[in-house]
């Protein structure tokens, strides 16, 4: 089936969370855990398609907004329940308590929470996420400037993860219980066991301190050219992607193993297809759904992991902004960043849902 057709069919069925066609079949074992499948009742009939589509989109948008509201209330309350406030942190141990109290009043933090929240929501709806207490600049611009680091870092790490995990997992599965399989599995076990901050430090010691190939950290900035910018993100992306690549390798291997001995694969071989075609077209394509599911979840984890690595490599990214803002109780920044990350993750999940339909036409969204 040509790619455009499967894409079209997949899109045509995007009217509800994915439901794989059959209840049986170990192939969808992992996918089912994440997005509970239900058997499709009929083949994708285009009748009433636009209406279903509209309903689906409306439902997703409502869920999206509801998530944001819940997340914003949650973070608003949590950060205020935590002991400590920005005024205390600005004054530290040297300032007088009276000065801290006066500063707190000046920042409006002595007002009741619902009023503070209402105020914040009203401005957020007008596109104003407030001003950073620590930095004295608008939060929106701050987030955007940090994205210039975190986004490429995450994308690079994700690419590294996929580039390492898919071939390695495939290789291990097709060489099941042979030397190559064991080597790959030991390597991935190590990858899971090594904490990313340590991997980062080891990479710094080797490539920056011993060999002097790259800087120990920091971001060159896109103004310095794409090459310099990518170079300063390479080590952190490797360290960040390592653990996720190891997990994905193991997922790929077991997913492929499950398909490898399925009947349709035997049939394909019996037809006399070349082993390469069997492996990529009949095995890989069918094994890829759980892989995509896990990879989708891992994108979220890569974002979370970037907090640690942006600190080790002192990159001015979103993760470090969030961490610094939490420890400085820079409330507007914390709220803005969390809201942004929540929106991103919801969008990512949505994208993964769309991918299912493309990868497996049997999955329905009604």
């Amino acid at each position, binding site marked *: 089936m040509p790619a455009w057709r499967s894409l079209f069919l997949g899109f045509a069925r995007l009217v509800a969370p994915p439901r794989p066609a059959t209840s049986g079949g170990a192939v969808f074992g992992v996918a089912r855990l994440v997005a509970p499948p239900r058997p499709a009742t009929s083949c994708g009939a285009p009748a009433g398609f636009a209406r279903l589509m509209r309903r689906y989109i409306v439902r997703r948008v409502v869920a999206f907004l509801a998530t944001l509201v819940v997340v914003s209330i949650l973070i608003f309350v949590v950060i205020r329940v*935590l*002991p*400590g*406030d920005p005024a*205390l*942190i*600005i004054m*530290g*141990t*040297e*300032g*007088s308590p*009276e*000065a*801290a109290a*006066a*500063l707190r009043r*000046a920042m409006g933090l002595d007002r009741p929470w619902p009023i503070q929240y209402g105020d914040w929501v009203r401005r957020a709806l007008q596109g104003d996420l407030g001003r*950073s*207490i*620590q*930095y*004295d*600049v608008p939060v929106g611009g*701050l987030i955007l400037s*940090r994205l210039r680091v975190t986004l490429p870092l995450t994308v*690079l790490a994700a*690419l*590294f993860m996929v*580039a390492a995990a898919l071939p390695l997992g495939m290789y291990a599965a097709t060489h099941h219980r042979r030397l190559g399989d064991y080597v790959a599995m030991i390597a991935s076990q190590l990858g899971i066991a090594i904490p990313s901050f340590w991997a980062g*430090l080891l990479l*710094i*010691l080797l*490539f920056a*301190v011993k*060999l*002097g*190939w*790259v*800087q*120990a*950290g*920091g*971001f060159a900035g896109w103004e310095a050219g794409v*090459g310099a910018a*990518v*170079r300063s993100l*390479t080590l952190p992306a490797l360290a960040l992607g390592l653990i996720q690549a190891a997990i994905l390798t193991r997922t790929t291997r077991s997913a492929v193993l499950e398909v490898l001995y399925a009947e349709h694969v035997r049939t394909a071989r019996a037809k006399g297809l070349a082993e390469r075609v069997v492996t*990529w077209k009949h095995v890989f394509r069918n094994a*890829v759904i759980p892989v995509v599911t896990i990879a989708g979840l891992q994108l979220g984890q890569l974002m979370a992991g970037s907090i640690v690595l942006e*600190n*080790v*490599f*002192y990159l*001015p*990214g979103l993760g*470090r902004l969030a961490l*610094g803002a939490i*420890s*400085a109780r820079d409330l507007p920044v914390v709220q803005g960043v969390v809201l942004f990350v929540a929106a991103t993750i919801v969008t990512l999940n949505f994208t993964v849902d769309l991918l299912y339909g493309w990868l497996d036409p049997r999955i329905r969204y009604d």
Partner: protein
Amino acid sequence: MAPFRPVALLLAVLLVASLPTPGRTQPAAGSGLTVQLTAEPPGLDLTATPASATATVVFYNVQEALVKVDERGRLVPWLAERWYTADNLNYTFFLKRGVRFHNGRPFTAEDVKYVLDRARNPETRHPHVKHYEDITAIHVKDAHTVTISLRKPNAMFLYTLARQGSVMYPREAVEQLKSQPVGTGPFLLARWDRGDRIVLKRNPEYHVRGLPRLEQVTFRFIADQNAALAALQAGDVDVVAGVGLGPESVEVVRRAPNLQVIVGESTSDVILALNNSRKPYSDVRARRALTHAIDKEEVVKGAMFGLGRVLGTNIDALNPYFVDMSKAVPYNPEKAKQLLAEAGYPNGFDAVLKVPPQYPYTVRTGEVIVGQLARVGVRVRLEQIEWGQWLDRVYKQADYDMTIIGHAEAWDAGNYANPKYYFRYDSPRFQEIYEKSESTLDDGKRRALYHELQRIMVEEAPVVWLYAYPRIVAAKKGVQGIWKDLPTPSFDLSEVAWAK
């Protein structure tokens, strides 16, 4: 196969990206200096935050005061060339001529009046309004002469004018102090890339001839000590100072052929604070028992790799009235047990020791102390709490038994005269002597009072003074002019330069 085309492309990109670069980007020696900074300043306004990160960047480098504390801790004339007082109540200052703010406007006596009037006005939320409360009037005589009147003699007055909260800035720039401070200093603020770096540029109009010697200074924020060390080793930064370098790394740096280490004194006193309002710490015998139970030499060895001076009181070695009291209450576990028994705790007691891991030395010091106190029967549970929580719970509400922290400010004995401070130490005897010392200007008499204060501290043992946190600076060989000791919380870069 489709999924693998981008993968191959990516591998190619990664390969190319990881190739060595010819000629690493580094400023030529003599022009610029890159300094690691552990914490990013919470704003650059010295009149709004006492944070040491702000002082490190701004104080002495961007903004200056009438009087300056020099490397040896002496008060020297700075923006005020000289001053006199006949009665210790009215001080007349003669300002240095030809001084200009970074915005080009000349610095005048009107600025002095504006800055100090603003500092003593509680509505401007200066962190230390109290320091200025004795000022009754500021009278501008002419553009370069100003008289400040006090309600009573104040021994700390000149010192207060040298504090970071007394820096001079132009009235028209008051709104931008937080993000774009303007002053008279050797450098002016060029850029603050939030979360990454602050760049200072040479002030070509600086009022001290021949200074500064650097064209540019870049402060880079690197919180992690391991990352900071790696950045120094890799040559990304030239100087790591303050808590940026852990004491465990000093030997590593010392052995590196291209690096140097400076270890000196600072005014940061690391203490085991005790909540004097709680039992058993309300009993002086229990407090003295804890002092006897702690082997401070071993603490410095175990937690600080032998760096740091053992303290006997809160008066540090950079204070001119310092008396070495470190042996006054010596390590003596038998004596400690005896005192505990006298206080009614023959079997010791239980305690929680709260430490903020943001400052790694507090955790390491705590671990050593837990072991030492166990030997006299005091069972301590170490609890790590986040800095914001520490400030709220421990510092603001005094909800704690014991805690460990370094107090960086110089001349901070007044904390022990304040019963509302988180030690909750309320000693009328100490408060009386302290008040007297504040208004005694005769050096000999004041010295005697300070000796008395140190004796009371030893006797009443409100907290356990552990050690003075050393000033540790690691730098590339060839960097010159960095202060060895740090009597004031700044990082004066005006005379720093690369060796020719």
